[in-house]
């Protein structure tokens, strides 16, 4: 192939009058014929029509074309069609090049047809020079291990595992604690239905009994290797090593409640945390008649700027449960902004007010002050201080990132955000994906999430994971980066630059290599490599320079 004579065919589209009505297409076609390597050039009314496509196919055969150029509309819309056409005629689709003479020429230079025509000639010449250097590329195929690894056996992890198992995939579920269930195990009841938390934990049995799910408890991850379709994870249980192979990984490690120690003269007796209140309510041992809850303790401050998302609803729930048991109890919630978005939660908030729970807004610069039997707080709605007596104070503590998140993130080569939660690929459109293919995140590992959010996210993560697991083979674009071993000095700058962790050092051969399965072909590494040792296929330096030279050089 390398030594084969380059034979380029150029097809120039009139696009009805869209191009043909403005630019001098026959003239352009005649010009194209004069360009090096061009053995065939023709214009047609609509290249994208069946007639036009047949013309391409036939001429590839008739003239033994080994490069095809279509000058028409935008490659963003039509490149896939023309590539497929080339492929049908037996030509490697990467030997196709598209030149945009409509959207970026005839349509934007309607009043300057002659200059537009000159521009089209330049663009086609640049295309021809680039095309002459195009190389055939193959899509990369990688086999996929048809099983999943779910890290974390809380509600998110269990639900994700169950969904994948129901889809027919083998699942390995690992949990660092001796029990499945995660944070729900410490809850009394769950909002918004106020039913027993144990009800939601019934899923635990479904998971443990499911034949497709292998549960590893008290398991610590030692090492994670591999890439999409082929992850290899080593775990330790009681000093026993197990190797788990999986096609994908779901991170569902949850989060931890911040310790109330040191906040608002916390003492664990009459000043307790919301988690401790859950425990008391579970044991039916709340005897207080005057209960005050303080929101945003240890968060929305300088140290921890974020809102922990779930504490308002949690406080409302417990406040209502106290009122249910003891309608005469006085329950107050000292808050900053009540976070009850959506339909059900806002209705829940109204319900809480209906029950007579008192809401007092405070300012962070004037936080409540706890005295012996009463609290003093500046009421923002009144512009003055008030006091409330109490016999129990409950501090709503935020969820914070687990302290082992960083270790796990390093092993997975995925990033964390400033607060230590896992950072997804794209906040808007890829909320449960990592930039690294085949790894997903759900639940409070991503951001403090309540049960319904955890379940939604774990369903989503399972769905995303299924897009990989349901394939036998993964096929990825051939236009990737490749490191030229002879030029690479192993400075590893590219490893840090790659947003997808596609470049790594092969410890065995001591060389830096690109994993073509992971590489997205953006080219950042190539343009930055200190030694210009990286080829970006389909956008190589030679190809681009050749286009530049012919544009500049022509007088």
């Amino acid at each position, binding site marked *: 192939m390398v030594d084969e004579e380059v034979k380029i065919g150029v097809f120039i589209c009139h696009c009805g009058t869209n191009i043909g009505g403005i630019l001098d297409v026959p003239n352009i076609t005649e010009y194209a014929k004069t360009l090096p390597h061009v053995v065939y050039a023709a214009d047609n009314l*609509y290249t*994208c029509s069946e007639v036009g496509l047949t013309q391409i196919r036939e001429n590839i055969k008739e003239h033994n074309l080994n490069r095809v150029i279509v000058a028409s509309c935008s490659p963003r819309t039509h490149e896939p069609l023309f590539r497929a056409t080339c492929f049908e005629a037996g030509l490697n689709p990467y030997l196709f090049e598209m030149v945009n003479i409509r959207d970026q020429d005839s349509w934007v230079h309607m009043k300057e047809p002659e200059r537009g025509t000159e521009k089209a000639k330049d663009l086609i010449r640049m295309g021809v020079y680039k095309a002459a250097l195009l190389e055939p590329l193959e899509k990369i195929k990688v086999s996929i291990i048809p099983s999943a690894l779910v890290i974390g056996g809380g509600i998110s992890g269990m639900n994700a595992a169950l969904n994948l198992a129901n889809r027919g995939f083998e699942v390995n579920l690992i949990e660092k604690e001796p029990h499945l269930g995660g944070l729900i195990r410490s809850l009394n009841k769950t909002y918004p239905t106020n039913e027993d938390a144990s009800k939601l934990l019934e899923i635990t049995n479904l998971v443990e009994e499911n034949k497709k799910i292998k549960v590893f408890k008290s398991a610590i991850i030692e090492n994670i290797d591999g890439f999409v379709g082929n992850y290899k994870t080593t775990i330790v249980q009681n000093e026993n090593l197990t190797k788990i192979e999986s096609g994908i990984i779901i991170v569902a490690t949850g989060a931890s409640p911040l310790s109330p120690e040191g906040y608002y003269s916390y003492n664990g007796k009459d000043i307790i945390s919301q988690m401790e209140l859950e425990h008391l309510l579970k044991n039916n041992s709340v005897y207080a008649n005057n209960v005050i809850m303080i929101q945003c303790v240890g968060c929305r401050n300088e140290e921890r700027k974020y809102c922990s998302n779930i504490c308002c609803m949690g406080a409302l729930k417990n406040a209502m449960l106290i009122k249910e048991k003891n309608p005469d109890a006085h329950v107050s919630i000292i808050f900053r902004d009540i976070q009850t978005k959506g339909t059900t939660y806002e209705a829940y908030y109204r319900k809480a007010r209906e029950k007579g729970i008192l809401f007092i807004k405070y300012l962070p610069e004037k936080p409540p002050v706890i005295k012996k039997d009463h609290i003093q707080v500046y009421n923002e709605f009144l512009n003055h201080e008030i006091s409330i007596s109490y016999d129990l104070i409950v501090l709503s503590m935020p969820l914070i990132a687990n302290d082992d998140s960083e270790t796990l993130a390093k092993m997975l080569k995925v990033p964390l955000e400033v607060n230590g939660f896992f950072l997804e690929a794209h906040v808007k*459109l890829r909320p449960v994906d990592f930039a690294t293919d085949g790894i997903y995140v759900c639940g409070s590992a991503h951001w403090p999430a309540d049960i319904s959010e955890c379940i939604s996210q774990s*369903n989503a993560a399972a*769905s995303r994971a299924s897009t990989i697991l349901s394939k036998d083979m993964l096929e990825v674009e051939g236009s990737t980066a490749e490191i030229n071993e002879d030029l690479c000095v192993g400075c590893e700058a590219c490893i840090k630059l790659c947003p997808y962790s596609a470049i790594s050092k092969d410890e065995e051969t001591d060389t830096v290599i690109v994993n073509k399965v992971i590489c997205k072909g953006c080219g950042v590494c190539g343009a930055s490599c200190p030694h210009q040792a990286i080829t970006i296929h389909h956008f190589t330096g030679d190809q681009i320079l050749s286009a530049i030279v012919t544009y500049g050089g022509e007088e």
Partner: protein
Amino acid sequence: MGTNKKSVMVIGGGIAGIQASLDLAEQGIEVKLIEKNACIGGRMAQLDKTFPTNDCSICILAPKLAECFRHPSIQLYTLSEVKDISGEAGNFKVKILKKARYVKEEECINCGTCIEKCPMRVDDEFDMLLRKRRAIYIDYVQGVPSIVTIDRDNCLFFTKGACRICEKVCEREAIDFEQQDEEVELNVGSIIVATGYDIFNPEYIETLGYGRFPNVVTALEFERLICASGPLGGHLLRPSDKAEPKKLAFINCVGSRDIKNNPYCSSCCCMYTTKEAMIAYEHDNELETSIFYIDLRAAGKGFRDYIERGHNEYAINYIKGKVAKILQDEANNPVIVYEDINTSKVKQIKFDLVILATSMVPKKDASKLSNILGVELDEYNFFKGGFYHPQKSSKEGIFLCGACREPMDIPNSVIDGSGAAAKAAEIVMRE
């Protein structure tokens, strides 16, 4: 068992439906994506940018639209509505009404000649009626499928029996006035509802002056006004006198958290008003913004930081307090009446432009669709999901995602779309 066991129908081609479709298709499941409009894209296509990253909305959406259109496992039914279903989870029979486009889909290349020549001017719904389109049109320039449609209700040929100019000018002979609406029968294993939401009409709250005062607009109108591909080409001018506004006010919870209108919280307004204020500021650094709110709901990932940035770097003044009354001075400047809770005094401030963050409300045909599908709505007319399994509808095999079940932002709609796909896949892939 039907022959199309491994197929799922997704109703609605907004971001939630698109995500569900792509996920299912990538799992090798056949998807029938039903869209009422001529193009997919939904509300997200109307937005200028998206919080909290301020990404350009169409930039991140367009690749998904193209993917949806090209995916061999996704069959797109535009201009289509569900008429009837029967059967049960694993084997639903669905009747679809596919309305005539009067344009041959495979012939049209969206060259725009017909649009240019069409003599009819029609209010453009995509641009929130802020400009006119023609009777032959494409929903929006980046719309997918990238082909035109004849708006039967406004086309001169259909209404007056004359014209057919489009037919004459089309070089591809793509216009076909003979096309008929057709009924299509589908057999699918599961159904996902992703029909999205409508916008509350703030004219119901008379004291806010919307509809009477030209410089009081809704947030979605503002998105179009400030969008580079919108009617003003991204150069923000206020409606009354085309002057550059320097003082903006946003009013949150218009129609929301309101027993008389919509008792629920619309979830996104605190964030999108901040976003809109930021974008406006980026266009003009002399601009000052006030956002009036009840509770600032910013619990999502990175949302608090976003609000902080709005305050510190974008001259946004957050004012606690709901505005119930807007007046107008002789120069058409909206005057907001609000209580300054720091002094307990009621004040009036003049603004150049006031933007109302109107509630997301259920689609007006939600109850019709719920009857056809046999699934329950909640007390507000949103599709009713499970408390802990929000994507599950009241009927087995039918799932919900996006704002059709509850007001939600884009990330949650995407999560919901994938989540519903997972549940639907469970049904169609079960042995």
